């Protein structure tokens, strides 16, 4: 299957390891991954902050870049939610490619029918279901099922998992105090699990959570779940 990777702007610049992890997982499963270099940002930040006019060229660019592919995969719940939920309303004719755009766990579990990707990660891990993955994409158990199949990984339930971490894009800046209060509760819950890693499907939320954990010098670290799934036996 010819799969196009939409790496997302945040991952391209700040978390390239997540993009590489997706490539590794899919290639290991025998698929060909392409990276259309015309890709940019999905436009979510603009659209959600009230800059629709500024988002539109980015949306059109995405549609143009990815329309030729059978399947598009992105390691980000919120970017995929933007594409699937908002594109059809923003740009006519975008529903088709939006319907073929998958968050990584949807591609693996629903399209490719895989839950065991052959990874090995002998660590205690807790999972934070990010809001857009949880409530817009309805990813449900998919990411957890993938993590449970990882050899050596002990998955610990996160109390209050479904509560927002407080990132919210520009919310973290505009309402910094409330965002920090939500972050403190999320970090506290993570630390209390005793996990070494907190995994999620979105690096933007993880940057916020990881930054909070690092600031309180917690031993738990944030990690994108694709990077766990990409690990191989030593």
């Amino acid at each position, binding site marked *: 299957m010819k799969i196009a990777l939409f790496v997302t702007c945040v991952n391209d610049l*700040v978390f390239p390891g997540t993009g590489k992890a997706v490539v590794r997982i899919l290639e290991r499963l025998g698929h060909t991954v392409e*990276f259309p270099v015309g890709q940019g940002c999905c436009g979510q930040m603009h659209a959600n902050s009230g800059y629709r006019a500024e988002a539109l*060229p980015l949306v059109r660019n995405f549609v143009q870049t990815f329309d030729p592919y059978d399947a598009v995969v992105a390691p980000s719940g919120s970017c995929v939610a933007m594409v699937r939920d908002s594109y059809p309303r923003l740009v006519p004719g975008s529903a088709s490619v939006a319907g073929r755009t998958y968050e990584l766990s949807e591609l693996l579990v629903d399209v490719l029918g895989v839950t065991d990707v052959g990874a090995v990660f002998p660590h205690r891990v807790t999972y934070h279901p990010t809001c857009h993955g949880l409530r817009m994409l309805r990813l449900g158990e998919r990411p957890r099922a993938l993590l449970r199949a990882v050899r050596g990984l002990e998955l610990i339930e996160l109390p209050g998992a479904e509560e927002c971490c407080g990132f919210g894009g520009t919310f973290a800046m505009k*309402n910094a105090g409330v965002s920090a209060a939500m972050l403190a509760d999320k970090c506290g819950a993570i630390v209390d699990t005793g996990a070494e890693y907190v995994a999620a499907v979105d690096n933007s939320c993880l940057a916020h959570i990881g930054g909070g954990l690092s600031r309180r010098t917690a031993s738990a670290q944030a990690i994108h779940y694709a990077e766990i799934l990409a690990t191989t036996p030593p």
Partner: protein
Amino acid sequence: MTGTGNIVARKAFPAAAKEKLTDTQLRANLRRATHTIRDKRLRVVGEVPDWEALRVAGAAIKDDVLSRLPELLERFEAAATAAGAVVHWARDAAEAAALVTDLVQATGTTEVVKIKSMATQEIGLNEELEAAGIAAVETDLAELIVQLAGDTPSHILVPAIHYNRSQIRDIFTRNGLSALTDDPPALAEAARRHLRAKFLSAKVAISGANFAVAESGTLVVVESEGNGRMCLTLPETLISVVGIEKLVPTFRDLEVFLQLLPRSSTGERMNPYTSLWTGVTPGDGPRTVHIVLVDNGRTDTLADEVGRQALRCIRCSACLNVCPVYERVGGHAYGSVYPGPIGAILSPQMSGEGANSTLPYASTLCGACYDACPVRINIPEVLVHLRQTGPHPAAERAAMRALSWTMRSRRRYAAALRAARRGAAPVRWATGGKVRRLPWPMSAWTAARDAPLPPKQTFREWWARERA
């Protein structure tokens, strides 16, 4: 009609929220109460096998009402009038409050009993009555607590949610209501004793309505304590203040809402008491019945294609109870009688005044409110829509434009990524990869969390080197 009254925030949300965040007692009270109700709601909603079908029907009934509102309002007015009620209309808060005050003055009484009502809070009725020398006695327990404390409501359903039991006992004691302990039953008993004589002697009662049935002119009040029944039954005169969006077309439609509302609001299968009355019934209840239909910004809201879904709201407050932002700051931070997620889309649409334009940003767009809403109001969608139509800071607008301009061209974007990666290199070297403080505006980020730095190679550089 642009709305007026207690729906206009005077302080920008971020500033108001910042103040509230320092109140640790408030945080603890809110956390305890909202978490209690969340679990209860999930339990009783889980019992209903056709919950989603009820939500879909509830949303559609309300949408149908909005599309037929002129005809349904006229039908309601005709039916209620035929049943002996007197129907009045008000364009805004001031007109509604003045109208009700005139009606009370005409009876010659100087004290009225009140059922908890968002509409009367919205129009500032108590303030108006007080100015006319009329004492308005709130009879709902939480509303009474707020009134005795000289405070304002902070929640749609439980206006005193920001107080815990011992604070409530203190408020009672200061006002001459004695409760033996701070046990909730003892506090409820104190309220009963305090209000009993007022119920039995009041000449005029004022209520809102949860629903108004167009075909029959019937009004519905959903309550728990029996204070509502007292007010609706014993006084000679009853005045009900009703927003024009409260209509449902037929009595049958109540079969949907009487299932949706109690489970969503108090997390009960059914609230203890629901009263329905149609005009005047000889020998049973008030002899004079007035109904005041209020616009106050609702027609402005109705005119917005995306935003009008906010008018489906049945004031259950489920969205407040699941909102992580509300849980941290409480209702007062929103500056309107309608706080929380629904307030963040309702207040700015009903009135563009004051700091209401900051409310659509009081959300992470986490979507918990949309999931909980019994009439499927897509609150995140409306929030984003209002951010689109509202004002933007000039610096932010310039930055967003520049970013969009850069990202829409492959060459500009690749160059920008390269520049950002290069720019980060010395910082990475100086900080060991962990940035603890950044200049404005990124200082808002590093106030609470370390910032990540771009590594030595962007993804596209890696791809170009390794795969292309």
